């Protein structure tokens, strides 16, 4: 029976594991869930703490925090929630060290699966015309990179070769172009 449980547990979704943990509060369930993302959490901590040793400690401390925090039945999308918990943990760590003012992210944001929903927008037939109009309103280099990335499925490296911009510039142009598109579409739809 335990074998069957174990096999099925490894195939459970995040949401199912969260539910199992909230019901039974078994440490191994949490470990199973957390190990799916511990390396991504480590990367996030390295980014914010700028120190790999501190990041490693942070990953372990976050796991210990989750033991209690995950009992909260409000947690629905674990991955997004974990990102916010990890980020807040790192920001709190920085605040302790620097006494800097940190604003924590809103819980509503914590429950959001997708953050910008551009894919959904692109997939909607009725908004395609609006998208075309908004594309024309973008700056030339933004329009070019967004078009290459979303319409021609080119990767950053390829766009970098085509446009001559460096990797970071390409990324920035796509991010900014995407944000401007979103604002434009929302403004015109409303």
């Amino acid at each position, binding site marked *: 029976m335990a074998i069957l449980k174990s096999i099925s547990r490894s195939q459970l979704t995040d949401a199912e594991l969260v539910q199992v943990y909230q019901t039974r509060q078994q440490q191994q369930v949490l470990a199973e869930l957390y190990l799916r993302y511990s*390396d991504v959490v480590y990367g996030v901590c390295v980014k914010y703490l700028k120190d790999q040793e501190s*990041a490693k400690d942070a990953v372990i401390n976050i796991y210990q925090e989750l033991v209690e925090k995950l009992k909260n039945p409000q947690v629905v999308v674990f991955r997004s929630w974990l990102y916010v918990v990890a980020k807040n943990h790192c920001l709190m760590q920085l605040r302790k060290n620097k006494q800097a003012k940190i604003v924590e992210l809103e819980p509503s944001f914590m429950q959001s699966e997708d953050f910008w929903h551009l894919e959904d927008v692109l997939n909607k037939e009725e908004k395609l015309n609006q998208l075309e109009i908004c594309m024309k309103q973008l700056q030339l280099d933004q329009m070019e990179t967004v078009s290459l990335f979303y319409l021609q499925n080119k990767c950053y490296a390829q766009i970098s070769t085509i446009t001559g911009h460096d990797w970071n510039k390409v990324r920035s142009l796509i991010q900014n172009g995407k944000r401007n598109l979103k604002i434009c579409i929302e403004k015109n739809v409303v």
Partner: protein
Amino acid sequence: MSSKRLYNYPQIHRYLQKQMSPPEMHAFEKTMMNDPFLADALEGYNNSNDALNKKHLAEIFTWIKPARNETSILNKISARWLKIAAILVFVIGATIATYTISNQEIENPQIAEIKNTQPSSAVDSIASADEPYTEKKAYVQSAPANNTMAFSRVYAQKATDKIAPEVVPFAMKPGNLPVDTMPGENVDKRLKSEELSSLKSTTSAKALKNISGDVDSLNVDEQNKDGWAKLQAYIDKEVNKAKEKNKALKGMNVQVEFSIGKNGQVDDIKILNASNTEVAKIATGILSKSPRLAPTSTNARAKIFISF
């Protein structure tokens, strides 16, 4: 898993090392565009020492792993129990199969007849020089096939002695009970109890052959030399009576084991096999009223096969 495609350190590492194909990179970047978790992680890994990353990730995994492995330990224990259970099931199954086959052999008169054609060789083959049993066995010689009663090997042994697991049927004529019906055997030639005691631990073929056919090894006939013959005559008589009363009993068989008490009474009757419950009751009734044999101090047990 989450519906979103998961990217972890191996994929991030491949991306940073430019080991992905352009379509893979595009898919990764597209995911990253909508996933600040992955974007932040990528940024973190991009500005870090890769060797140290690997070391730290291994340490994190080792630290968290014991909690996850609680399940594995349970699984191992469970698997161990399953193995034990499987072995037990196999052993029990094999035992039942062996028992069923041996009983079929007893109940099959054709097999009994075949064995009857080789009476002494059966004893000889069983009584091999290296046979490990220290029990005293009384084997019954065979008789022609027109029997109404058949005896299996009659085991005479102390209660603590090991019981041989197999039973080879020997059909007998009515009246051909162990001691008195051995061809060429004389009751006077029976081994004395002292001799038998000295043979307890003897395993030679010769010794077993001497015991075989000599129910004196049961130590029941010293005072009542024709006890076994009387018992058989009594059983024959009762079986015939029962058959006359109920013709449906004809052809039915019972295998019975009993002990010979200190006062020579037939005691502790156990039905090992019976065609039906009625015939088992009749056999038990017959044996419980049987004449006494000579007293024995050895807690001897005997198995007999009664054919109606």
